């Protein structure tokens, strides 16, 4: 495993970059940035492929160790965030859904309510907000934990024990984040829709719960459910890959950890936006 890690990441990201740097003139600033971005992209792509390969190859291996870790990560990326998500769902309902319902009711456009809710909450805001919150809460912790473990030599200690670091450290985090973001998104959407209606109800909007739910149900089709699941799982997968890559796949010193955590969160947000854009194209095509 060490060899694979060394070849796929360290060589690409640190040694080649360190030994063959581009001239540090201001004219080369953009080229340096682009070069570095491409190296990072290459490293993260390789890391994602290795993680998938390990997941397939070691499916069921060391279940007694890996399964509890997966449950622990699902708890950390999902269950433990439920109280915070309840607050966010209420806020989203009050701030966005309730006001939208009130505004549409005032202009007599409640017929657009269902499709507006589906586009704004189900397709866009719900998944993206859930992913961003998990990234900031759990993704940052991932980078710090793994980065510290890497800096303190725990990764070499795992390898010396014949334990694959990707299998033991990364796979549970990927599964935990993918399932956690999926579950939290569903929870967030339901919470926002319910609290939004309550807000509108308090404003005496002439819309019965039955009509409200009927309109939303009519605006949803099976593709929304399928793409919602795919999108949230993709968010979880890519956030886990980006944060774990920065924490684990590069040689780190302790003083680098905080800087790397900031970079990982920035790249995580970028990745979320890119994945979201990809799904917008999918929605438009289908």
């Amino acid at each position: 495993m060490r060899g694979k890690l060394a070849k796929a990441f360290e060589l690409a990201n640190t040694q080649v970059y360190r030994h063959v740097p581009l001239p540090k003139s201001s004219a080369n600033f953009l080229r340096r940035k682009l070069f570095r971005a491409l190296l990072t992209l290459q490293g993260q792509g390789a890391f994602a492929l290795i993680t998938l390969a390990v997941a397939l190859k070691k499916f069921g291996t060391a279940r007694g160790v890996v399964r509890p870790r997966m449950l622990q990560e699902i708890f950390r990326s999902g269950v433990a965030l439920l109280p915070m998500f309840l607050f966010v769902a209420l806020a989203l309902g009050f701030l966005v859904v309730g006001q939208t319902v009130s505004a549409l009711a005032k202009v007599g456009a409640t017929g657009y309510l269902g499709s507006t809710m589906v586009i704004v909450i189900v397709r866009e805001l719900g998944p993206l907000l859930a992913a961003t919150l998990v990234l900031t809460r759990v993704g940052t912790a991932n980078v710090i934990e793994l980065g510290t473990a890497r800096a303190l030599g725990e990764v070499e200690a795992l390898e010396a024990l014949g334990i694959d670091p990707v299998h033991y450290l990364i796979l549970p985090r990927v599964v935990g984040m993918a399932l956690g973001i999926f579950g939290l998104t569903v929870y967030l959407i339901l919470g926002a829709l319910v609290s939004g209606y309550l807000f509108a109800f308090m404003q005496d909007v002439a819309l019965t719960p039955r009509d409200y739910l009927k309109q939303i149900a009519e605006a949803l089709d099976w593709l929304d459910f399928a793409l919602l699941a795919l999108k949230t799982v993709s968010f979880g997968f890519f956030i886990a890959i980006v944060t774990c890559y920065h924490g684990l796949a590069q040689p780190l010193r302790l003083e680098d950890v905080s800087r790397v955590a900031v970079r990982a969160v920035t790249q995580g947000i970028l990745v979320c936006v890119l994945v979201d854009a990809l799904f917008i194209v999918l929605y438009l095509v289908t």
Partner: protein
Amino acid sequence: MNANISANVIEMAGADVVALRDTLLVAVEDVNWTVASGEFWVIGGQQHSGKSDLLMHAAGLIAPARGTCRTFGVETARFDETQLDERLRVGFVFTGGRLFNQLTIEENVALPLQYHQGFAMAAAAKEVAELLDLLELTPFAGATPSTLAANWRQRAALARALILKPDLLLLDNPLVGLSARHRQWLLCFLDQFWRGHDWFGGRPATVVVATDDLRAWQHPRRKFAMLDKKTFAALGAWGDVESATHHAVKDLLAEPMATIT
């Protein structure tokens, strides 16, 4: 795991040892070294002389840039999951222990058993408890590494390396940071382990230690080698070390014991 030990446990031929932190950097050049089964080797060298990197090559954690490195007959450049049986015959104790900080001492020691032999924690508990008792770690079983003193962390790391009953034990500067009592305990325990301890089935083991102070390892049956200026040199037995005129050997012998805290 405890299959018959081949005649040579470690064989390096023309190996260029690279540094862990930068695998393009050669730390020791052209190492020709053979460790036979049941030998106790002490590798001396100053800081950054490549001792740790040499041990990591022997453990199959890094492949040499040039030449070959074989452990239990398997070339370590290909020391991956397919050679897991050979890898698990090697125990490695890092400087400072490198315990997993999220786990308790008991969980740290049980991890290799759980991962490789599919033991649940309850099933591994008996064996782990025995080993912790042997290493006087029982009172600290539920503690996390960060709450322990360096003496006990190092001992816990030894327990983790020994839980799979390895045939070859590699120790990287194991006396660093230990108090006099713990240093003495470790030297006695390693001697017992090397000769064949009952808990490990009574069979003799192979031990390789990297150190920056040769004096603590003085013993007529141990073999000594030295790393200096990217060169590996086998010195022979303790008598040869004492009579060596090389300044680097003298430096390693001159290190007063009191400086090792």
